[in-house]
């Protein structure tokens, strides 16, 4: 037996380890992203959501994690492509008859297609919200809140001239917040039926991608303990395959039907 072996990341298992770890990191992100975005359902003209958006784009540890996140999306996609090309070349002559459904599930065989739908979705999603927010292409808003009663006294749209920078001022127990109105941008974007349809389709793709992907990531790192694997599969199917995609899909639908 040779004691010299190939480096980890040039082997098939090393590349799959990268897929697995970036995938699990993206799953973690989804959970955090969902919890934050649930504030869209607040009936407060976007007060909580817009403050949250400022926190997420300025708090330094979150910024570091966000760069890791962009890297993960890109690495996950590139390695998927590399591995898929290798897999195609491993069978240059295909079968005349293939009975894939007899021995495996559809989503496990079509992770690449589902992933491509998600990549298109991520590009659209980021250009609609991330890009616009970071490049000052969203409206501005001012909230006046009575801190004693917690009552929202006044909500006023600001013009570009009136707004300079995100600010929170308290005067006589009245809080005045000036912020970029990402909430309004979300509301505006989700009046478009094609965009809402894309989001719902993408969340269906996400569900099927993660029903296979989440438990598959654990198999790839060799985690297969009899006692815990059932729990992992349940989390994969119910949390990442049902709850998270359904709640995300409800957001565009909520704004579309709210009008």
């Amino acid at each position, binding site marked *: 037996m040779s004691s010299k072996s190939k480096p980890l990341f040039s082997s098939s298992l090393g590349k799959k380890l990268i897929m697995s770890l970036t995938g699990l990191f993206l799953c973690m992100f989804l959970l955090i992203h969902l919890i934050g975005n649930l504030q869209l359902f607040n009936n407060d003209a976007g007060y909580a959501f817009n403050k949250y958006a400022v926190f997420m784009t300025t708090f330094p540890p979150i910024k570091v994690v966000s760069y890791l996140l962009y890297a993960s999306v890109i690495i996950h996609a590139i390695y998927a492509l590399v591995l898929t090309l290798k897999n195609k070349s491993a069978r240059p002559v295909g079968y005349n008859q293939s009975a894939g459904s*007899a*021995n495996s599930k559809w989503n496990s065989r079509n992770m690449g297609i589902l992933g491509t739908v998600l990549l298109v979705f991520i590009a659209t999603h980021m250009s609609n919200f991330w890009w616009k927010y970071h490049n000052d292409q969203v409206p501005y808003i001012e909230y006046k809140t009575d801190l004693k009663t917690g009552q929202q006294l006044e909500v006023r749209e600001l013009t570009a001239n009136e707004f300079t920078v995100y600010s929170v001022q308290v005067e006589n127990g009245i809080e005045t917040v000036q912020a970029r109105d990402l909430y309004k941008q979300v509301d505006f974007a989700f009046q478009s039926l094609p965009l809402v349809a894309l989001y719902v389709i993408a969340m269906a793709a996400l569900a099927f991608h993660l029903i296979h992907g989440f438990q598959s990531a654990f198999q*790839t790192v*060799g985690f297969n303990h009899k006692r815990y694997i059932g729990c992992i599969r349940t989390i994969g199917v119910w949390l990442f395959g049902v709850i998270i995609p359904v709640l995300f899909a409800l957001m565009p639908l909520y704004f579309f039907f709210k009008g």
Partner: protein
Amino acid sequence: MNLTLKVWRQKNDKSTGQFVTIQAKDIADDMSFLEMLDIVNDDLTRKGEDPIYFDHDCREGICGMCSLVINGRAHGPNQGTTTCQLHMRSFHDGQTIVIEPWRAAAFPVLKDLAVDRTAFDRIQHAGGYVNINTGGVPDANTIAIPKVIADEAFESATCIGCGACVAACKNASAMLFVSAKVSQFALLPQGQTERYERAQAMVDQMDAEGFGNCTNTGACEAECPVGIKLTNIARLNREYLSAKVLSQRDIHA
């Protein structure tokens, strides 16, 4: 019963093959699939044609020589059987049966339905063995092994190396085979000496042979004639990654 066979015919490893339609007449229900091909070949030989070339040996499901993708399924439509254990009662009169060889870059077609599976042998040569002094037969139970471990190692060792896992996998991945071979030694005390080098050497050879990457679809497990489980693949991942990441053992030079 009478059947229409669409069989892949290919002169040798250099030529490009094609499907040829052959009629199989007067086939009995209780014949095995290979016996049916024997009858067809008898007929072809009498007519002075080249018989269909296919791999077979023991014809009782233990040698791993027979192969064939039958109507898109490795070893035919039944679970847990090799092609020699598949009987014609699984088909019906007048059915068209498409018979193809294993398809993988690492398993080139030699002739008709036979493929070159020496890639598996080379993976075994890379690490599928133990270095021990053999000598006489040791006494039973000189090395105590818990029953569950012995059973699990035995389950892994039942792999007959037929290659159905590669044939069924959409990526032509050999992970189920390699994982079974690594597992049977990793579980037993006799396999500990080379445990981590084995996992690395066999994975390296598997990659070098041009097999695809495992995407955990589970097709291999579903088509395996002897029931090798996906837990073996998780164990191989564990063995390999712990060797690489946690405790790489090299001879220090």
